[in-house]
């Protein structure tokens, strides 16, 4: 069903892959501009301040990259499942479980192990927790035919309930009142980018941007290599494109569904490293903060391709950072404007992506006819 958006249309690649998404995002921006106007603000001024807040300073850029890191993971989590023909709406829950996995190892072994051993273990644990949380809906889809869209939504709520249960119970910091865990020890904290650059002799402001960003780059490259340059990736994509043909070609589609969901969950679980081990340094109730849903938008605009996802994650990182700055600078502007724009982008670049296709087909045909008659003797 997720693949229904592609197909039958014969537009050249550069229109289909570049112009159409940009056009659709443009419409979303236009509608958001109308909303901004309607609440009595100047859209151009807001847009200018947003860009400045996101890219105008080294700190701004760092914050943008920090948000983008989280969106890379959740975007990839949607994309990998999409290539196997599955819609993973469970990024939010998988990310939450990833944070739990990271926190459990960090809190449990934090005093025994040095950072060089502890951090890889935490990464592994975060990925495993995310993987497990996604593998159950995956297995139910593959062997019991339970629709993965519905089960992943249910698993989001189950993860939220579980984390609250743990944070008001066994994991609660006995010293505090808030539902959050004890702070992670120094060895369980991912070093910040300012520390890494400090080692290299560069002076960089202290921001939430941390070494997890490098992990995000590795994940982008890794997913690209896996999907398009390995046997396993071929089997996964074949299952998404044509399960029957894949079966005939000796691929077991059920196993591929499980692999795709497991991989997606592991990627989403890494959000836990960026947020829990990298920034908050303790397990919070709602550290994922909608990133799992933002991942759907990121993957949609990025056309489910790692390069596109990197660009889309940067766009959303910039929107979140710029939006956060705007709240301080423009009275009457709320962070939810960014959420609105995110929804509008999913609407126009996702759900209604095909609405503009006939228009572009007609324009393309017109242009070609004009080109041909001009070229004729």
């Amino acid at each position, binding site marked *: *069903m997720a693949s229904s958006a592609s197909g039958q249309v014969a537009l050249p690649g550069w229109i289909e892959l570049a112009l159409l998404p940009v056009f659709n995002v443009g419409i979303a921006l236009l509608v958001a501009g109308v909303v901004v106007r*309607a609440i009595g603000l100047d859209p151009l001024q807001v847009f200018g301040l947003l860009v400045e807040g996101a890219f105008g300073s080294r700190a701004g850029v760092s914050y943008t990259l920090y948000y983008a890191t989280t969106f890379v993971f959740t975007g990839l989590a949607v994309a990998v499942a999409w290539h196997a023909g599955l819609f993973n709406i469970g990024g939010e829950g998988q990310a939450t479980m990833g944070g739990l996995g990271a926190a459990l190892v960090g809190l449990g072994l934090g005093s025994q192990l040095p950072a060089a051993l502890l951090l890889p273990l935490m990464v592994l644990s975060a990925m495993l927790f995310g993987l497990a949380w996604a593998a159950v809906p995956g297995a139910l889809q593959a062997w019991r035919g339970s629709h993965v869209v519905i089960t992943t939504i249910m698993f989001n709520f189950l993860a939220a309930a579980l984390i609250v249960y743990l944070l008001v119970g066994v994991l609660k910091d006995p010293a505090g009142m808030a539902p959050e865990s004890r702070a992670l020890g120094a060895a369980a904290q991912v070093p910040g980018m300012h520390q890494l650059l400090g080692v290299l002799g560069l002076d960089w402001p202290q921001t939430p941007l941390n070494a997890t960003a490098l992990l995000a780059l590795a994940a982008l490259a890794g997913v690209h290599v896996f999907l398009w340059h390995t046997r396993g990736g071929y089997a996964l994509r074949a299952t998404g494109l044509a399960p029957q043909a894949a079966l005939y070609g000796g691929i077991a589609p059920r196993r591929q569904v499980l692999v795709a969901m497991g991989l997606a969950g592991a990627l989403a679980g890494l959000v836990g490293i960026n947020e829990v081990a990298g920034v908050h340094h303790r397990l919070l109730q709602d550290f994922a903060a909608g990133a799992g849903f933002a991942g759907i938008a990121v993957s949609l605009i990025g056309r489910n391709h790692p390069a596109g996802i990197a660009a889309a994650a940067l766009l959303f990182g910039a929107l979140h950072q710029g939006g956060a700055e705007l709240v301080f600078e423009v009275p009457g502007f709320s962070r*939810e*404007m960014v*959420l609105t724009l995110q929804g509008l982008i*999913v609407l126009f670049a*996702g*759900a209604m*992506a095909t609405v503009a296709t006939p228009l572009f087909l007609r324009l393309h045909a017109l242009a070609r006819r004009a080109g041909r008659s001009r070229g004729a003797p």
Partner: protein
Amino acid sequence: MDETFAGSLLASTLRASTPLVLCALAGTFSERAGVIDLGLEGKLLATAFATAAVGVATGSLALALLAALAVGVALSMLHGYGCVSHPGDQVVMGMAITMTAAGLTVVLGMAWFGQGGQTPPLPQALRLQPWFADLGALLEKLPLAGTTLALGLTGHPLPVYAALLAVAGAWWLLFRTRFGLRLRAAGENPAMVEAAGVSVKGLRYRALALNGVLVSMAGAYLVTGLSPAFVPQMSAGRGYMALAAMIFGKWHPAGALGACLLFGFLDALSIRLQGMPLPAALGGGAVPVQAIQALPYLLTVVLLAGFIGRARAPKALGQPYAKERRA
């Protein structure tokens, strides 16, 4: 268990179930016609906001309800434009509606009322009055469970009773009329419907219109019956829970009602058991409220997995229907 406790538990079960029932019926109509509706959550939020905003601004219940109706049906028509007229992905459309509504209601609420996204409390004219209050005095005289019934069943606002009637209405419409037969066929085998000379698009649009009307009722009830004002994200996952109830009820109005009452009961129970100790036989300690709250989702997954009966979705669910064209 004393009678007052049972009565108030029954009452809050009914009140908590009402928005779920209306949303689950809305989902049943659209999904029976072949359109997945993940936008229920967003529509619920948007219609609640429309009711509250217009209600506060005009003080008129009729205008507030009209605004809810307009917003609910408009969002459903948008869904139809993207996924019935055009072959857009229905799941993505639902997510888009939910995300946009979650953001836009707060943006507009802050701009218009400046209270962090809340609306001021709705004026008294918009508070729904209790119904059948006199009947309570009569029921009370019944032997055995008189007090429980009086407390539990009477004195609710109108939508609580209307939702129960809507279940019967939806069943009649879906399973006892020609329109219902065609609507269900559009969700099972749209090509056959088209071959019989009936428009699949028309049927799906009409199902979505009914969906919009029912969601509007649920949204309006949230701010006129359940809570005194609009609060950001006040739908609190009810749209998704209604979707779960619809599946749990196997896409049947009566089944959905049963599931909604069960989920509403668990909700009411978890609120009442908050902070209460477990019986000593279960080890004492606080009641794990989160476990009760998570039960609806867990039960739905177990049902979907086919371990307690089989939930079968309409066959053409989620598939855009394009009329075959002569080349």
